[in-house]
């Protein structure tokens, strides 16, 4: 039987992927402190999770806030007595070719998609080390392989992949695994807002012929959080319907 940590923290919990992950983990009995910038979305998530085996405590916050990691850690320790799982799911995407991307936007993309998650890991890893076990799962992106128009986003996600390798090596002796999931094009409200001709072009570049679903990613995260993945660390699992082995130029 697959077992999961009893408690954890998840960021970006009210977003498309984050919400599915939160509900899947709570459904598996993981008690969670869930955070998101969107307080209304977070409140709705907490209501939706009511009755699941795992408790979901909502705590609104911005991952760029330097004090948030400690606050989340303290809240989880007070409520559950430990943090066995950290899921970094916060994200922000705004594309532009490098010539047109303002430096401030680049910095914002890196701050949210890379620096925030690293701060969380810095705050939570010592708790896991003390416990001698833990699971860290970060949502990266297939864009880490390079993605036209995504210099800021892909740079940040590449940073997560790079850090994951070093952190996995450092934390492996302490019973902690560190992995990434790199989703491709996932059907979320943001994806559905794309102009039809762009959406059509994106879908044509995906060999399986469809967008991924948030449940595709939740299933992977549940696996990486569970006892069945204890021998997997430092890896980036790509869930993109084969897009990463097809011709990237086709969709540019």
């Amino acid at each position, binding site marked *: 039987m697959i077992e999961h940590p009893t408690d954890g923290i998840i960021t970006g919990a009210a977003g498309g992927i984050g919400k599915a992950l939160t509900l899947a983990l709570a459904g598996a009995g993981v008690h969670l402190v869930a955070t998101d910038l969107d307080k209304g979305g977070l409140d709705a998530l907490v209501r939706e999770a009511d009755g699941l085996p795992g408790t979901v405590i909502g705590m609104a916050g911005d991952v760029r806030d330097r004090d948030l990691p400690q606050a989340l850690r303290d809240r989880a320790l007070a409520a559950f007595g430990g943090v066995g799982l950290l899921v970094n799911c916060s994200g922000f995407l705004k594309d532009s070719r490098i010539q047109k991307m303002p*430096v401030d936007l680049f*910095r914002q993309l890196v701050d949210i998609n*890379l620096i925030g998650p690293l701060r969380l890991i810095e705050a939570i890893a010592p708790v896991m080390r003390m416990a001698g076990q833990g699971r860290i799962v970060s949502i990266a992106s297939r864009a880490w392989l390079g*993605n036209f*128009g995504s*210099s800021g986003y892909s740079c940040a996600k590449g940073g*997560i992949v*790079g850090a994951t*390798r070093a952190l996995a090596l450092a934390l492996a002796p302490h019973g902690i695994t560190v992995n990434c999931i790199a989703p491709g094009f996932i059907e979320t409200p943001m994806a559905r807002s794309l102009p039809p001709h762009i959406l059509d072009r994106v879908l044509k570049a995906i060999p399986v012929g469809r967008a991924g679903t948030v449940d595709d990613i939740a299933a992977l995260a549940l696996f990486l959080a569970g006892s069945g993945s204890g021998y997997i660390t430092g890896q980036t699992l790509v869930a993109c319907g084969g897009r990463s082995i097809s011709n990237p130029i086709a969709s540019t």
Partner: protein
Amino acid sequence: MTARTLVLVGNGLDTRSLAAALEPFDIALGVIERELRHDAPCDELRAAHLLSRFGPFDGLLLAPAFVDGPDDPTVDDLLDVLTSCFSCVKAAVASFEERAVVGRVIALLPGGATMGEPGEAINSALAGAMLSLFRTVALEMRTTPVTVNTLVYAMHTADEPAGGELLGDPEALASMIASLLGSGARGINGQEIYALAGADVGRLHP
């Protein structure tokens, strides 16, 4: 062979040996040391100003890795350095396009941090971020005369006296840089060359 000028923006990497190794290829190296870890991140205007110090340049080398110092790098340093790298790449691309010339942008990354090393999380994050930034910019530049590539270099090992230099094999690195500068390398774009003498074989690349 035409003389060429490269501008290297680094973060404390000792590059004297690299500059010397580039001389036989008639490549002058203008070094802007430690500008990546300035008090404030480099914006576009400052990056353009820095690069223009050396006149019309043929290529930009970025060597952003943090080297050993009294203070360990923090995630704030990482954010600043990545911002500065982005500004420099953007300024270099703008300069090449404005002058309508062939341009080369090359990242130099240390092998250990790039492949992943315990205790090197910030440098590994930096290396991963640079790899992905360069892949994406290479895609965006693929129909232009600008190429964007990464060279992963070996460092001196602990049991080998470094003699004040950090680069394991500056001559080999210089040779690869010279190759990438040549017109024959115009089809090489978005690539990562692991010049680690095979130390990376058997490991997954990031």
